[in-house]
């Protein structure tokens, strides 16, 4: 299958390892990966902060329509395209029809639902705990797909994260606009992660991991954060 990668602007700029992992993983599974170079950003930061993201919709459509599948290694950006784009395009039937025709999937959705794979042949000999980010859990409702994928990884020991469904406190510009509450939420998430004894915290959103991981690093906990794609790509 020919799959387009929407790597997202945050991964493109700060976490290229995640994009490379998606490419490696999908090629290993026998698929062709395209990276349309005219892609930029879905507009989530602007939209969620109250600024007009409509100018980002049409370029996104021009870039990604016509693909069998578009994979996004970020639940929040995938949720932006699937949930917010239809609202932004609501006033323009032609645009709304183009948005409705998009086939955008978060990575675990693509693997489990579209490609029908649960064992991707990965090897990762570490103790790992999984944080279901809010947009995975309550936005896209990816459910147990990431657990299913992680459970099939050789050598990986998956431990439950207490209070996993609680937000980590990132929230995009919330982390800067409400730094005290954001830090308080992060402190609790860090406490729960440390409680598990895991070496690695994994999630489907590098933005949340940048926030929790930034605190884990500042406190010299020795726990590292990794995107789901990087564990699934490891052999």
């Amino acid at each position, binding site marked *: 299958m020919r799959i387009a990668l929407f790597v997202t602007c945050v991964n493109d*700029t700060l976490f290229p390892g995640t*994009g490379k992992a998606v490419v490696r993983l999908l090629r290993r599974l026998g698929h062709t990966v395209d*990276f349309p170079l005219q892609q*930029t950003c879905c507009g989530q930061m602007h939209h969620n902060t109250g600024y007009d993201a409509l100018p980002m919709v049409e370029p996104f459509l021009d870039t990604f329509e016509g693909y069998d599948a578009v994979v996004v290694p970020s639940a929040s950006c995938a949720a932006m395209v699937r949930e917010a784009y239809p*609202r932004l395009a609501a006033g323009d039937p032609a645009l709304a029809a183009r948005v409705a025709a998009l086939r955008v999937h978060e990575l675990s959705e693509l693997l489990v639902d579209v490609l029908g794979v649960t064992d991707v042949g990965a090897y990762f000999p570490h103790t790992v705990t999984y944080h279901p980010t809010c947009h995975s859990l*309550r936005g896209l409702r990816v459910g147990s797909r990431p657990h299913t994928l992680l459970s099939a990884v050789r050598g990986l020991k998956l431990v439950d994260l207490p209070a996993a469904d609680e937000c980590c406190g990132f*929230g995009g510009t919330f982390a800067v606009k*409400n*730094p005290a509450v954001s830090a308080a939420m992060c402190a609790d998430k860090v406490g729960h992660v440390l409680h598990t004894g895991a070496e690695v915290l994994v999630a489907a959103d590098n933005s949340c991991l940048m926030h929790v991981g930034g605190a884990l690093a500042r406190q010299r906990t020795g726990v590292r954060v990794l995107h789901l794609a990087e564990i699934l790509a490891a052999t």
Partner: protein
Amino acid sequence: MSTYLGLPTFPRAAESSTVDSQLRANLRNATHTIRDKRAAAIGELSDWPELRAHAKAVKDHTLRHLDGYLEQFESAVVAAGGQVHWARDAAEANAIVIALVREAYAADAPPAGGPAWATGVGGSAARPGGAPWAEVVKVKSMATQEIGLNEALEAAGIAAHETDLAELIVQLGGDTPSHILVPAIHRNRAEIREIFRTRMPDAPADLTDEPAVLAAAARTHLRERFLTAKVAVSGANFAVAETGTLVVVESEGNGRMCLTLPETLISIVGIEKLVPTFADLDVFLQLLPRSSTGERMNPYTSMWTGVTPGDGPSAVHVVLVDNGRTGVLADEVGRQALRCIRCSACLNVCPVYERAGGHAYGSVYPGPIGAILTPQLRGTSSALDASLPYASTLCGACYDVCPVAIDIPEVLVHLRGKVARGAGHPVEKAAMGLAGWVLRSPRRLAWAQRWAVRTRRLQPKRLPGALGGWTDTRDLPAVPDESFRDWWLREGAE
């Protein structure tokens, strides 16, 4: 809500809460307890999704035809011997209540047409000292908090006694509520004992902090009020258009006392409280207690329809309050907030509320629902009100538990748009404008990424200005050797 003017913005107030260890512990314990009870109570319902969808549909239908249902309700109340008053805003509602209390206390009231303080006309003019000339007992009511009724009554020389235990704690403490259902959630029992000991004249000398002992002290204190007050003031959880019936749902029985003992009963009801028929209560009386206290059914459900001769109050008044609601109704996205049945499930699951506390929201409506209701009822012209739509990570936990399916994150984003299109912050606007300009063009984005890679060694570990909030508690991610796009150009493409 005049008592809240001049308060700091949400982030500033929340910052103080985050370092208050007592407050944090009180909130964590209380919200987690109610949260777990609610989850268990909802978990018992196999038809929760259907009940929720039905309740949403009933409320939406009612709001769409609100004009007709309001008139139907008025006719039904009048036919049952009650009286209906219409109040455009808080000042009108307060003046109506004060006039009705004057009628009930005709013998003791100051002369009619007297000074502003005694009539409520022309604002809350300060009243000269002296004992109150009338007493009112109150059922817990968000609408009366919203219109600042207690303050208006006090200014007119009328003593208003809160009879809900938590509202009594708040009133005696000279405090404001911090939760819709549990107004004194920010207090623990040791603090409550201290408030009773110092502020309640008839508190027993050997008062302990045992909940039963505290409740008994409050009961003794309140009993006298129930028996002497000629007027009771309540809100209503629901108002039935078909029959003119008002419904109050409560746990302590204090409401039942207020609704049955005094001669005059005045109910302050927001116009969004209507449901079309008596049968509609079936759904809401399942959803409300399970969502709010986590109980299958609340201990006391009182319903009354006008006047029943020889039984309960002989004068029954309903004050229908708009106070900004028709403005909310005109907003296609924001109007869903009027479906709210004030269960406060959204507060109890909100990670931001749990750490900021209710007072940080600067409104009688705290938490996620407050963050969408207050800026709609009051507007976003003050710095506090403009900060409320941003008091959320958009995590969506509130939407998941809402029994009337209010998409709170959607409304928050909608209101953020209003704030950003208004005066806003010039620096933020410039930054978002620049970011948008870079992010709209692959060429400019690639240039910015290469510039970031080249200047890596020069970048500070701590960010300046408003961005310092990030690096105060977190390390920044390292900028990689090259962007994904440059890797793809170099060797990614097959």
